[in-house]
Each structure stands twice: as C-alpha cells, then as structure tokens.
C-alpha cells in the first residue's frame, strides 16, 4: 500500500476507493504475512469500509417502486389543494 492509495483521514472515501481498499486488505490478509495485530487492524478497517460501502449501496428501498409522474403530480396537486 502506498501513501497515494491511502485516504487521508477524515476525508470520506468514495465507494470505489473503499471497495479497492477492501480488496487490498483482503489480499494482505490472504498473503498470510500479516501479524496478529495487523490482522486485527485490517479486519477492523475492512469491516468499517464494507459497512460504508453497504450503506452506500443500501440507501434505497427493498424493491423497485414505479410511479407515474402524472399521478404523482395530481396527487401532489390534490394534497396542495386540501
């Protein structure tokens, strides 16, 4: 991991950056070279990154919902008028 790849702390990572960092973490863990301390640190970091990514992905509903604009408009108009 180089300094360029590291995200400066405090700055939000993009999904892609977070995702890439997760990959990197897993590769590092896969190498088997990480010490116990490093493993813990990596797993922690990976977990929070994955959660970040999941939040990013999971910000929508459970299922695709379809609406018609004209219906929405009329409903809003009705609501506005009441």
């Amino acid at each position: 991991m180089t300094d360029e790849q590291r995200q400066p702390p405090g700055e939000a990572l993009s999904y892609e950056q977070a995702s890439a960092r997760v990959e990197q973490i897993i590769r590092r863990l896969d190498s088997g070279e990480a010490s116990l301390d490093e493993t813990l640190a990596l797993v922690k970091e990976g977990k929070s990154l994955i959660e970040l990514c999941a939040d990013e992905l999971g910000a929508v509903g459970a299922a695709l919902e379809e609406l018609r604009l004209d219906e929405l408009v009329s409903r809003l108009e009705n609501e506005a008028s009441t």
Partner: protein
Amino acid sequence: MVGPPSSIRSPSAADGEQTVRAARVDSAPGAGPAGGIPDSQLAGPFPVGDYAGALRAKLRSFARVQLVGELVNLRPSRARVYFELRDAGGALPCAAWRDDWERMVAGGGAPVEGMQVVVAGGCDFYPGSATSSPGFSFAVSELRIAGEGDLLARIDRLRKRLDAEGLCEPQRRLTLPLVPRTIGVVTGERGKARDDVLAALQRRGWAGRVVWAYAPVQDRHAAPAIVRALGDLAGLARVDVVIVARGGGSLADLLCFCDETLCRTVALLDVPVIASVGHHTDRTLLDDVAAVSCSTPTHAAEAAVGIDLRRARHDLAAGGGRLRDHATQAMRSRAELPVAAARLRENGRRALLTRARLLASLSRAPGEHVARQRARLHQQLREIRAASSRRLAGGRELSARHALVLARKADAALLDARERRPRELQRLALALAAHDPQRTLERGYAIVESPDGAPLASAREARAARELLLRFADASVAARVDER
C-alpha cells in the same frame, strides 16, 4: 404510426356498420342473397374486387410526378420499403420495391428519417383480396436526398450558440449519485425504451423509485411535453437523476431533442440528465447539454445506477465473509496453544522420566554388581563344598570297597584254613596212615622189637637180641628166643 393499409381502413372503420349492411344488400342480386340498398340512387351493388380493380386502374392512370417532403416512418420489409413523405400541408404513404430502393440509395447514401427527399413515381393501389387488406401508396421509382444540409446546419448553429453560452457545462459539473434513490425517466409510454430502462435497472439490482414521465418523443409536439416533464421530475418528484430515453427513431424524431427550449431547460436543471435518444452517429443537442450521453436506454439506466448493485452486494458479502474467515483463521492458532503447552508439559515429563529411569538403572547397577559377585561367590563355595564332598565320598567308597575286598580275601583264607587245607591234611593223614604199621598190626600182624623198642627186621637180629617184645595191635608181649 400510420401505415398505408390503416389509412384506408380507418375511414371504413368509422362507419363499419353501414359498410356491412351495404355489402349484404349489394350481394343479393349478383353472387349471393344480398340485394341493393332500397331507395338508394347509387348504382350497384358491385363486387368490391371489381371496384377495387377499377380504382387501381384509375389511380394508376394519374400522371406520374415528382414530390418533395420530409422522409419519415421508414420501414423496410422483405419485398418493399415503406415510408411517408410529409410537409406542413400533408403527407403521402410511399412504397418502393426493395430492389429499386437498393438501386436508388446505392449512389447518394441511405436517406434517414427527417431528411428532405424528392421522389418520382405515381399513384398505385393494392386491391387486396379475401384474406388481405387493400392499400394505397405512391409507388416510388426514383429518390434523391434534398435539403439535408439545411437541417444539420441549423442544428449546428444552435449547438454553437448553446456552447458559447456555456450551457454544455452545468450538467457535466453535476455529480451522479452512485446509487440514486429516485430516477425519473422521460420516455414514450409504450416504447421499447421504457422496457429496456426498466430491465436494465432491475438487472443492476436497483431497488429505488422510478418515476415514469411519459411524453411523446417523436414529433414536433414532443419538446414542450418533455420540458414540462423534466420540470416536474426535478421539482415535484425530486428525483436524483433523469433519464431521457427514446428507442431507435428517425432523424425527424431526433429533431425534437434538438429543440432550443428543451436544451436550455436541461442545461440549467440541477438534476443530472442522462440522454439516450440518438444513435451513436447522430448526436442531438440534448446529448451535448446532458450530464451523460448514452447510445441506448440500457446504457442510460446503467449510467444512472453507477454500479451493478447485485454484484456489488455480492462482492461486499463475499468481502465480509473473507474478513470473517480471516478473523476465524487468525483465532485458529488458538488451537495450537494447548498443543504447544501440552508438548512443553510432555517434554518436561519426558526429560524427567528418561533421566529418572536411567538413574534408577544406574543406581541399581552397583547393587547388581555386588549381587553378581555374591552369586559368583556362592557358586564357588558350592563348587568347593561339592568337590570336598565328592572327595570324601570317593575316599569312603574306596575304603569300603577295600574293606569289602579284604574281607572277601579274609573269608577265602578262612575257608582255606577251615575246609580246603584241613581236607588236604586229612588226605595226607590218610595217606600216612596207610603206611602206618599200626594198621597191619590190627589185621593180626605183630612187630618184633628189641626191648628198647627197636624193630627187629630179621631172625638174626632176633637171635642176637634174645629178649624180644612182640608188639600186637592191642599191646606188646615180652618174649625170649628159645631155639631148642
């Protein structure tokens, strides 16, 4: 969309009830039970095929001319190519044989929809049959593209103006959310584009809200409707991104996406617009001002949802799983600790035990040494004792044997002295006795002896002796020689 057969059919469908009744009446005097319409002043009823055939002959007899108009609704089929020519005043369905069409477009390039073209030909009518619909068309035998430059030049001028006003930039500066919550889609209600967008969104595993803004997307009325839809989507529906999508269409259809008002509206919209209205060859002005321009509605949907959510979720789950596995793996070495501790314990024990065993055997060694020596002494002593006993026993046996032999010898000697030798003496005594004169005396003989006991063996000795003793066996008698 209006095609040649439907243009004929439409009017008849409007008063279909009448047509049916008329057909029933017309058929009566001729081929069937139908008779003419009572009280009608018109001739007939004639068989419609006859009439259609006559109509075709009449139309074909019209003068062949050249027409100019906008080419729209181009629909090639297997045998023929159909299209319409339109201008502000009207439209005419056109058809060309497929072979003729290939020849016509071979030189100047294929005309596309929205182009001004000049065609040459004449009216024609397909009379139809019992199983097929009739149709009118202007049979085209020659075609030439006209006025194309004008349209493109007009669009180009507008593009430059918009660009100069910086209207190509604002949309591009907007950031597309990776996963929008709400997507507005402006498209034809029944178009294939709508289905493509929906399918692509579903493929991505996106589960947000789609707000469909159906609008005409193919004619000169389209632009105002789209402008209105965009405003509503951004303002009322508060969508995160808008897709303007249209399936493949003619250049004329695309012209509405070059509408100046539409383009200005889009450029100033604070919601990113993804355009998917043209072909990759024909770039509309909407493509220039939109945040993203895509070649197909599918691409547009993929641009709106910047990530394959299905795969991304799967990847995230897999990544989480890997992390979990590594965490488990890291703790797996926990199982090695008791093993290592047990090995330490065993090693300690073994070190003690092997030494203790060795030491025990070593400690026994001097004792065993002594015991061996004792056993040896014991054995030696027993051997000495046995040897001395043997010696004594041998000596005693020998003495006993000697005594026995000596006793036997003594016995033999005793026997000798008591039996053999006395017998021998007896024999000798007997032999001696045989010579003893005493025995002769016992038979009656007598020995003449001198008085001193000397035997007198002759008469002379007797005479000389004068005194004699006559010894008989029992006793001696004294006698005197008397030689009278």
